């Protein structure tokens, strides 16, 4: 079984570009209906299937995603 992971998204720095959403093989991410202070729909987790693969974080142009994976 794949390891379990989690992501932390700095939502105020997110620009809602959606590049991370399609990069996630587990369909963990989506854009929130709400907006941040800059008016961007920010990325949020929509399920707990994260494996900590880091795909989302390495394609994020603004480096706002931090990734954790169980040891």
């Amino acid at each position, binding site marked *: 079984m794949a390891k*379990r992971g*989690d992501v*932390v998204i700095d939502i105020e720095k997110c620009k809602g*570009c*959606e590049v991370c959403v*399609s990069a996630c093989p587990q369909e963990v991410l989506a854009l929130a209906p709400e907006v941040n202070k800059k008016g961007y729909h920010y990325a949020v987790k929509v399920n707990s299937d994260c494996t*900590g693969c880091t795909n989302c974080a390495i394609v994020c*142009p603004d480096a706002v995603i931090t990734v*954790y994976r169980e040891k």
Partner: protein
Amino acid sequence: MSENLITPENLVYQKTEAMTDRILHYCPGCGHGTAHRILAEVIEEMGIQEQTIGVAPVGCSVLAYYYFNVDMQEAAHGRAPAVATGIKRVFPDKYVFTYQGDGDLAAIGTAETIHAINRGENILIVFINNGIYGMTGGQMAPTTLQGMKSSTSPFGRDTKTMGSPLKITELIAQLPGAYFVTRQAVHKPANVRKAKKAIKKAMEYQKLNKGTCFVEIVSNCPSNWKMTPVQSNKWMEENMFPFYPLGDIKVPEDK
């Protein structure tokens, strides 16, 4: 998932310290940010933050010096390879890179690009090819594709009157001073990993003093292409990659 996985032991990815905490001014989804980050990650992983000097261009990445947590110098438009030449010759033990767009490197700076590489300057040139002048409002660049619309080719680039898109990377690969030349992308996880490996190789080669390393990154400009970031990446795959195919163009013969 009740158990908390967010602990220091489980940390597998965070923003590199070789980048500052400034918020990037780039448009949402612009490849410039990702390109900056992987270059910064290589600098951090190689432990050369104190020994690296970068040269910023004119173009959207004109403010690159705000984001790289290393010594940086701004150059006049297109002159980064000349400025980097001076820096490298004064500090031959430093790792010196330029970071340049296609307007900067392949239009106004063509002479500097070609002559620095022809001299085999031991620098790394990172070349962001988005086929357009991003910063100034989407004018046609030498790299703009045939038929591609821009603010100065509103009906699409007509090669009869505007010339063909310039494959500057293939061109400079012919020069004896070019040691390692490769073309990469940063829009998908696999591409990001490959591009980072290429940049790392290029930085490591700088120690050998064997010539210029040149890493092109075919990138997007969602704002001036007038697409969403996700659409722009798809458009790039379908239109830019066939003309600018990804992969190594010149690899060291002695490797």
